[in-house]
């Protein structure tokens, strides 16, 4: 939004300075019809963005408001209005007490699956991407095409094969069954290669080698800090991916104590209304609110890294 208006006046200004007198004249008739279309496109873009904002914020608003309601108000009052009484504290209390406090357990599991998993995935991705960019080894490009192939295959399609593999390895219904697949992130490797190419000049590495640093030391002390924004970007990508992954934990886990939070919420939600346990429905609503909070927090905290990381990749 902010870049396009500043670019437009700048372009004609640069043109008009060398050519004097004659140049502004042909431009004037052209400029006259421009404002309506510019205005139109501006209005159009704003309207579209407004729609997208509504699309994003309305469900969150419903979630926020519904979480404060009692069970009667949840069905008895408008979804986008406040209930008669505020029950948020009560609801939160119930949430963390239900089924022996299993919700806190789910949160911890999710932080382990998504947080630790994405952290390691990002480390591996950056290391691999750096190696693909800076080192030369036999079969490099062929291996890289294999990585790209991995980018193309959607995660959900991999869930069943992974499950069958995990069954062979005896990892079904264990922490590792969900954790280990989260460490593999081909798209991160691809991104890391792009980041490494744009952030880490070869000259710097040469200088480091001249000064006697080994390959590993060069990577850790010189290259890694330089691709830090890329690292954060990859981390965030994988973090959201694991946080939102549903089908893999669904087939992999059956022990409730190992569930990530989204699967747990689904268990509550899916049987709440059909089996006449509306309190579980309310738990699922409040639980969803609590579950999106960390995601929002992580994004707000790491946003500046994310932004710089995105643009860096785009320019190159």
């Amino acid at each position, binding site marked *: 939004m902010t870049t396009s208006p500043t670019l437009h006046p700048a372009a004609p200004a640069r043109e008009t300075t060398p050519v004097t007198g004659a140049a502004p004249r042909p431009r004037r008739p052209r400029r006259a019809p421009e404002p309506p279309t510019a205005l139109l496109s501006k209005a159009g873009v704003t309207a579209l963005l407004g729609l997208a904002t509504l699309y994003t914020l309305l469900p969150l608003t419903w979630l926020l408001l519904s979480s404060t309601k009692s069970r*009667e108000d949840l069905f008895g009052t408008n979804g986008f209005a406040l209930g008669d009484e505020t029950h948020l504290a009560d609801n939160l209390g119930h949430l963390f007490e239900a089924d022996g406090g299993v919700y806190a357990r789910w949160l911890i599991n999710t932080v382990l699956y998504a947080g630790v998993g994405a952290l390691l995935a990002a480390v591996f991705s950056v290391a691999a991407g750096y190696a693909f960019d800076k080192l030369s080894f036999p079969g490099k490009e062929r291996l890289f095409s294999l990585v790209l192939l991995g980018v193309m295959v959607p995660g959900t399609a991999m869930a069943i094969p992974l499950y069958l593999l995990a069954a062979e390895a005896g990892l079904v219904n264990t922490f590792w069954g969900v954790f280990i697949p989260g460490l593999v992130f081909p798209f991160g490797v691809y991104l890391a290669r792009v980041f490494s190419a744009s952030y880490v000049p070869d000259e710097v590495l040469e200088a480091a080698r001249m000064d006697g640093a080994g390959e590993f030391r060069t990577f850790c002390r010189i290259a890694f800090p330089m691709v830090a924004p890329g690292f954060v970007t990859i981390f965030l990508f994988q973090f959201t991916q694991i946080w939102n992954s549903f089908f893999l934990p*669904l087939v992999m886990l059956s022990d409730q104590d190992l569930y990530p939070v989204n699967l747990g919420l689904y268990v509550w939600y899916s049987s709440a209304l*059909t089996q006449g346990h509306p309190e579980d429905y309310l738990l699922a609503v409040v639980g969803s609110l609590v579950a999106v909070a960390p995601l929002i927090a992580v994004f707000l905290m790491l946003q500046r890294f994310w932004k710089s990381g995105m643009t860096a990749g785009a320019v190159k």
Partner: protein
Amino acid sequence: MLRRTTAALAGSVTALALLATACGGGADQGASSTAAKKTGEVTFWSFVKGSDKVAEAFNRSHPDIEVTFETVPSGQEYYSKLTNAVKAGTAPDVAVVEFPHLPEFAAQGKVEDLTGLLGPVVRERFPDAARQLVDLGGRTWGVPRDAAPLMMMYRKDFFTRHKIDVPTTWDAYRNMTEQVKKADPAARGGVLYTDNPGLLSALSWQAGGRWFSTEKDSWKVTVDDGPSKKVAAYWGDLARKDLVRSLSQLDPFWTSVQKNRTVAYVCASWCAGAHQATVPDQKGKWAVAPVPTWDGKPASGMYGGSSFVIPKGSDNSGAAAEFIKWITTDPEGMKAWVSSGTSSMFPADPKLVPVTKAAFTTDYYGGQDIYTLMAQSYNAIRPGWTWGPVMGATNTAIVDQLPKVADGSVTLPGVLAIAEKATITQMEQRGLKVATP
């Protein structure tokens, strides 16, 4: 009639099972040699409320068997999870399967044949209404827990205030919905769920429809047979004339009940408990009535209900069978299911009705004897109903079209024809023999 069907089914289902085992391969060969051992560990998957209590109670009274209960989500996701678990050899020893999905699991060879272990129990304890759903091709594939005979729920206060009679026939039901709408333009006397074909199939069943049957060694698919078409035309008409509410989910349904906008609806035995838990502040306003029928004579079908199976590959089927027997036919087991006091489930074993009746207080319904009504409905369930071997595909085909019924872009009998076509296509893809009707 029933006997002939089952005899005919025998050939087809065993053939199907053979086919499935041959194709699936790698299934446990040793599992069919049923060890009489009744000790050891049993894992148990269920989404049914009270499952944790049942497992605890069983462990207390059976020190030789250790049951580990694992909560799973309900719905189509659960069935794909169970299917994959059988494929990978990581399936539990006991799992819940709702009646409509049982033939699919049996035909694919994903569940153990329980004829030897539990067949006698099923024959002895359960009436035809429930047995016809777990016995396929003369073999027993599961043990019923609860039946779900149809009932009607209505707002007593609303009906009295506006002098509306409780309908006993479907003609009278239509009049009732008109009277309700006239009395209160915001209120409706029924619901057509557009995300779940369960009620539609139950009502077709009640009208004498048969969506599936078998002939020699092939399946006959008649989703749009005469009675089913009659039912579909009736409900499609009510929905299009806005006499019943067309609702996509249970959330807006309960909202409409809470806001006094739904004053009557057709449901099953379990709804009484679900209703009082979800709308507790309308206590005393609701009553339960027998489901209306076409000719005024008692007739019913099932909307829901579940059974327990031993998935293929279980390595402790002896203990698993013992557990299944206890949770479906033992009074103590049934007591554990309903120990929370909030469930109005109707046990498929009629001998256990007193247990559930004692656990469910009917203050909410003004002390009405709802279990007697349920028992009458259970006895009136029409024989001869079989669920199909690709119910997932059948249901999806119906649900895809249902939302378009109310605005008239498709007719409900037309939806059944579409579902029939989709079902046959899916069955042929799976290599199941389909007889031309």
